[in-house]
């Protein structure tokens, strides 16, 4: 007997849960302005998130999935994507979406039940969020195939949760990405929970990163609450995809500090102790403590930042709340480029009824 293949999965962490540097930092992290900028973006995402939940609780927003505790992943990736790359999100990537120019108003419109929230005025080619789990993986493959055919150095970046990696769509996507050497990066936000099912009940694999090997592509694990680790891995992965046609999977380990959505009650299936322990590892405080230790951050700056974020969020919330409703007949207007005769008749009937 001989070994025909073997594997190892690397795990990267730069800042441990006590905000201590546990290995030499990558060059970008030597520049405090980069870290501060990422910190600000995480805080902004969290302030937005909190406001969105408040809007839902007061009947001004529909069901909303929070990204609490997972901000480092999408903010880090948003920081390393180029503007002409394409983001293919699931639904906890507000941090990346804001960085790419999706407005908070648009995110609120979407969760507030208005399709115009998917008509991004900023990144026109970015995909809207994807509710049917993992079904957007093949879209990222198609985008990357298109970039390759057109010989443009662009990258498709798709996000998934841990549960999504149990689906065939995910395997079909990484398999094709590897087969054709496509410029695509698969980011897994392993937040430990797929609604009520913990990762240990999703798979017998020791890591999700190793699932990449089934597609013949590389996979690595990072501390998803350490934004330096996520950014380091994402920067490398995007460069490999863009310049060498080498797709990869990054498993970023975080924790869903929030309920699955505002319609969920996580206390039904997980203990308070577990959540309390997870709060000790969360990404925003981790970076803040490090910045403070280095003398780059203090209470006054924090206060100022929170005030700025709140003001920014409030302004967007007002824009959202002030958005006039779509005309009801708009439900007919984007089904086809040219509306067929029968749909025209239904539209006319509808318009006459609502007059």
């Amino acid at each position, binding site marked *: 007997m001989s070994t025909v293949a073997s594997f190892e999965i690397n795990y990267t962490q730069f800042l441990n849960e006590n905000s201590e540097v546990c290995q030499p930092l990558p060059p970008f992290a030597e520049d405090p302005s980069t870290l501060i900028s990422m910190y600000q973006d995480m805080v902004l995402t969290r302030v937005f998130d909190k406001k969105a939940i408040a809007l839902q609780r007061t009947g001004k927003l529909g069901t909303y999935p929070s990204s609490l505790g997972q901000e480092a992943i999408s903010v880090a990736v948003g920081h390393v994507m180029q503007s002409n790359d394409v983001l293919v999100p699931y639904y906890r990537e507000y941090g990346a979406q804001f960085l790419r120019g999706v407005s908070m108003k648009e995110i609120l419109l979407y969760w507030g039940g208005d399709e115009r929230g998917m*008509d991004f005025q900023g990144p026109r080619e970015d995909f809207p969020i994807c509710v049917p789990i993992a079904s957007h*993986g093949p879209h990222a493959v*198609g985008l990357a195939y*298109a970039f390759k055919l057109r010989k443009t150095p662009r990258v498709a970046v798709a996000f998934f949760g841990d549960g999504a990696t149990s689906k065939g769509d995910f395997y*079909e996507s990484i398999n094709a990405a590897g087969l054709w050497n496509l410029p695509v990066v698969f980011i897994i936000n392993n937040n430990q929970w797929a609604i009520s099912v913990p990762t240990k009940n999703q798979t017998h694999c020791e890591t999700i990163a190793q699932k990449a090997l089934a597609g013949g592509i590389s996979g690595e694990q990072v501390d998803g609450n350490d934004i330096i680790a996520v950014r380091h891995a994402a920067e490398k992965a995007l460069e490999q995809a863009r310049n060498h046609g080498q797709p990869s999977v990054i498993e970023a380990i975080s924790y869903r500090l929030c309920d699955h959505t505002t319609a969920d009650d996580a206390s039904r299936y997980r203990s308070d102790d577990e959540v309390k322990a997870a709060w000790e590892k969360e990404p925003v405080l981790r970076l803040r403590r490090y910045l403070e230790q280095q003398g780059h951050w203090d209470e006054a700056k924090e206060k100022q930042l929170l005030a700025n974020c709140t003001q920014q969020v409030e302004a967007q919330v007002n824009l959202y709340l002030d958005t006039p409703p779509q005309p009801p007949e708009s439900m007919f207007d*984007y089904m*086809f480029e040219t509306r*067929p*005769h029968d749909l025209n008749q239904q539209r006319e009937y509808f318009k006459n009824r609502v007059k």
Partner: protein
Amino acid sequence: MTEITLIDAVNMALARAMANDKNVILLGEDVGANGGVFRATAGLQERFGEARVIDTPLAETLIAGMSVGMSAQGFRPVFEMQFMGFIYSAVDQIINHASRLRNRTRGRITCPLVLRAPYGGGIHAPEHHSESTEALFAHMPGLRVVIPSSPARAYGLLLAAIQDPDPVVFLEPKRIYRMVKQAVEDNGEALPLDVCFTLREGTDISLVTWGACVHETLQAADELDKLGISAEVIDLATIKPLDMQTILQSVEKTGRCVIIHEAVRTGGVGAEIAAQLAEQGLMFLMAPVQRVTGYDTVMPLYRLEQSYMIDVPRIVETVKQTMEYA
């Protein structure tokens, strides 16, 4: 002009579309070197290269889903599902994504793609190869569903489907892939995607059908003629949107209608046509609208297949019953 079969016409339309527009991409299982299991794409990889005629991994969700991604970037993917029975894992992509992206993004992202698949029974194929599930797609908002029944219509309708800015499900009746030959000019002319074809004029009864059944229906019309019954035969061709105007005009003239389709009866496209006739054409009707359809059974394996298939006597018999009302 040489005479060609329906499958040749599909191949000719694909070649024409690819030559005219470099954004047209073919993908699917065995579509490359093998030219497709029915040879619909024969010679195309050789002519247009491996980048544009893609042999994909055996993964239907991927094929449909990556077509969504490519079409979002301005390509016009035409993807083949090898048989109807293998289409269902791709249906998630068609229903949840391709048919909705334009609406979801208010026109920002569109999906000008074509799903091509052979469909229907009658060729002694293995299990899961012979179904007719066009109604599944016709039920879904945002899709066009097209079924050609002759070489010329296959050519013109497929060109139209590829040029269309929205997703089109193009189902090819494989029983008649090589049944008839017809002279078809490779002139690049597309046919409309919302008009039925009246194949035979008649005054006593309107026979509405599509796909391979068109041929049995035309034969039935010949037999009925011998019995002194003048049947008008309409090939629906565009299952969605339905061209009810043509059907209503015909029924206004004949006062009777029989709908013939191979698909199972309940919830079939025939039910929609009958319902619309009841809504808009009741006053023209001298007899109840009848349907000659497949049964609500699983498509039998090939020893019993012919018991399921629609034959000429069944159509003639149903027409005669309809004629007895008035």
